[in-house]
């Protein structure tokens, strides 16, 4: 049982990192980035290739940087020119980007699944009670906690973080003194996509790489974001924890209908509380 | 003076956390009266309109329309009993034709006087155009037409003159006065433009920081030192 809960935490951690990137971008731009799963996938593949030269950790850094740059580009080329358009237009554009990315990844890396080994020194196992547990999985949990802590500190104590929080509560919040909103949105969107890249690399030793890996995590992270309340950081954290467990326990105990469980959880939450867990505050 | 008022608002209150946007506001409107609701920004005018029409949650106090307690009714049900409003921010149906949307509003009003309303608001000539295609001033009048159709018992107007030129505002004010007399409307009017207010209102209620500062005839209010200090400033001193 303990091992199942731990596995659920591992998946929750991964889901959290993907979802919180979506929340960051939504909070500032009011747009749900449908290409986010594509970025996660590109991160995994970029990390895979870069790891051949720089090793796993070097690959991770390269992937995060590349995805951060893609995010900055995305904000500059897509989100900013379309900021006064209907949000649905922007969402559809990100959907188009997703299609192109999937195709390009398939062109470069092929459609076959690729696998990645857990990096040294996290490639062993650890004795937990009477079971052996892969160390790498514990590392994933630790990375998710580090991301959550770092984001919380940034949101609470930096001026930019304060602005991001205010903006995700109220879209109409206008420019705050001392914050260059244009520059801020570049870095927030960049941070959001960099987190997608990070999660892609972190996930690759756990799950195989394939051009469709992005869409499955994207859909569960959508469930996380809606359950948590669009734009809510704390909500995404709680929802990721819950859905990670539900997802994992479902696969173990009721494999046939496992995919329905996160959805049912979300439906129950939405019926009880239409705004999701939290009303948009960090 | 009759015993039943067209509108009796008692103890209207809306709090956001510890902050009271509207605190224990009460006033009464007689049938046929045009009442101005004035106050500086943040005084609670729009909140008061929202509470009267049931827009948004968390509100205390009672609202009686023509003797009937409507405090628990939804926005939709309040319209059905004859309470209608226009909006400060133009709030129309951009994809619908002008006549089409006024007719739609008329379906739920006591009776259909779409053509009369269109004519009164000089919208007849452009009635077949799509609302998003006409000018801002025309759209303001479409907003008004949606509230006015069916001659509601009580009409709440939230800054109908916003964004209009001085001449347009005064023309609108005179026209509203004229309409109110002919159609026996009772109107609660929120307006920034003091010239409009003084041109058409029978009585004024002044809100300040969410509470009623004073109420009276326009001339009394204009002369009230408290009002001058809190709101009107030196312009009318």
């Amino acid at each position: 049982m303990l091992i199942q809960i731990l596995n659920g935490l591992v998946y929750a951690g991964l889901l959290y990192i993907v979802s919180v990137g979506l929340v960051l971008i939504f909070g500032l731009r009011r747009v749900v980035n449908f290409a986010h799963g594509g970025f996660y996938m590109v991160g995994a593949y970029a990390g895979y290739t870069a790891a051949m030269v720089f090793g796993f950790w070097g690959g991770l850094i390269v992937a995060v940087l590349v995805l951060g740059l893609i995010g900055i580009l995305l904000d500059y080329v897509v989100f900013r020119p379309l900021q006064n358009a209907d949000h649905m237009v922007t969402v559809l554009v990100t959907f188009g980007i997703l299609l192109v990315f999937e195709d390009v990844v398939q062109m470069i890396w092929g459609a076959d699944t690729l696998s990645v080994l857990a990096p040294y020194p996290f490639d062993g196992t650890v004795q937990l009670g009477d079971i052996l547990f892969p160390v790498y999985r514990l590392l994933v949990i630790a990375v998710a906690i580090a991301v959550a802590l770092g984001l919380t500190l940034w949101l609470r104590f930096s001026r930019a973080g304060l602005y991001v929080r205010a903006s995700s509560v109220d879209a109409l919040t206008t420019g705050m003194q001392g914050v260059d909103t244009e520059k801020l949105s570049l870095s927030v969107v960049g941070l959001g996509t960099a987190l997608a890249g990070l999660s892609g690399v972190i996930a690759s030793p756990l799950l195989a790489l394939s051009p469709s890996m992005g869409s499955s995590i994207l859909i569960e992270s959508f469930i996380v974001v809606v359950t948590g309340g669009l734009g809510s950081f704390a909500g995404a954290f709680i929802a990721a924890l819950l859905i990670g467990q539900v997802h994992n326990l479902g696969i173990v105990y009721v494999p046939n209908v496992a995919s329905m469980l996160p959805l049912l959880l979300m439906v129950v939450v939405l019926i009880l509380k239409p705004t999701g867990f939290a009303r948009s505050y960090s | 003076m009759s015993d039943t008022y067209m509108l009796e608002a008692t103890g209207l209150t809306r709090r956001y956390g510890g902050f009271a946007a509207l605190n224990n506001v009460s006033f009464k409107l007689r049938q046929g009266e045009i009442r101005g609701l004035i106050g500086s920004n943040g005084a609670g005018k729009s909140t008061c309109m929202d509470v009267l029409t049931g827009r948004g949650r968390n509100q205390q106090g009672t609202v009686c329309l023509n003797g009937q307690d409507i405090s628990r009714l939804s926005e939709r049900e309040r319209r059905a009993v004859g309470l209608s409003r226009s909006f400060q921010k133009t709030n129309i149906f951009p994809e619908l034709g002008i006549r089409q949307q006024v007719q739609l509003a008329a379906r739920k009003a006591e009776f259909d006087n779409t053509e009369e309303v269109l004519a009164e608001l000089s919208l007849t000539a452009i009635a077949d155009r799509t609302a998003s295609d006409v000018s801002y001033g025309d759209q303001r009048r479409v907003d008004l037409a949606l509230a006015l159709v069916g001659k509601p018992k009580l009409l709440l107007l939230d800054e109908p003159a916003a964004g209009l030129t001085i001449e347009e505002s005064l023309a609108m004010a005179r026209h509203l006065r004229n309409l109110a007399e002919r159609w026996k409307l009772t109107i609660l009017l929120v307006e920034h433009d003091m010239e409009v207010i003084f041109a058409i209102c029978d009585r004024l209620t002044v809100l300040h920081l969410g509470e009623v500062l004073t109420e009276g005839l326009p001339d009394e209010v204009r002369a009230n030192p408290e009002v001058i200090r809190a709101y009107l400033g030196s312009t009318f001193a």
Partner: protein
Amino acid sequence: MSNLSMAAAAPKVRTSTTPPVLVVVGIAVALVGFVLPWLGLPRNILSLLTSASMTAILATGVGFLVRQAGFSSFGHAAFYGGAAYLLVLMSVYTGLSGEAVVLLAPVIATLAAFALSFILLRTQGVAFSMLSLAIAQALFELMMRWRDLANGEDGLRMRLPREIFGLKLSFFQKADTMFLVSWSALIIIIVGLVLLSRSHFGTLTLAIKNNEERARFIGFRTLMPRAAIIALSGLIASIGGTLFALYNGYITPGLLHWSLSGEALIIAIIGGTRSVWGPALGAFLFVILRDFAGNYTTHWQSIVGLVLIAVVILLPSGASGAVSSLVNRIRGGRDV
């Protein structure tokens, strides 16, 4: 009489109702469709057109939801594939008659759409899209993993009697005859939706889409009309799916996959959702171009992605909008 307006009355302009020329063209296109099977077209072309007309039905449902309620569904494969699965599953697992199976499949899918609409309507804007995607994808995963039920990714063959509705089953499985069935269904759906959009219900739902709050303030309920539009859109998609299952006699989870949902939405947008018939036009363009492009490139998906981006930014009224303004220009009218 005093007058509120300072501005001079604007000249009367033609409104945005469909120009009669388009109606004539539409009737002509509909009639041409009915004679197509007798023109001696190659079999593969006819079967391409048959699948295109089913995709057109799906896209019409998706597009009508955008047009009439403003919701962009990323999950309509749930209704299309859902009805197809219902049909095949019922034909395999129940003793119901062939007719009952064919009729019940879309009815159940529509009831499901109606029930789901109350959950979807608790969200707004883009959350609707996210939720619809999540629901459809959960159904996809369900059919993939629950191998005992529908054979997972290997798919399942339908088991219907040799005759339904007094016709041989092969009538529904040959391109030339099935094209007539699905083409008729498409025409009936489009005509029905055009009439509906001009009724009071059409005006009301458009008003709610434009401004839900004001619709309440002028005295209308706004939940049920929106739920009805979602259910209607689900019904249309499920009719498409039912026809697909009948025609192919075989289902796989691909019918539920998000890429089909996304494709339907893209088709609707490329075709143009301002008109009822735009998505159907988009479907024929899309299916024929995909077949054509298949000979030259393997990067159809990139092309679709780029075309989608171009259309939403540069041509928001889509192909049907372009056709409408072209027709107006030919008539010498103003470009409305």
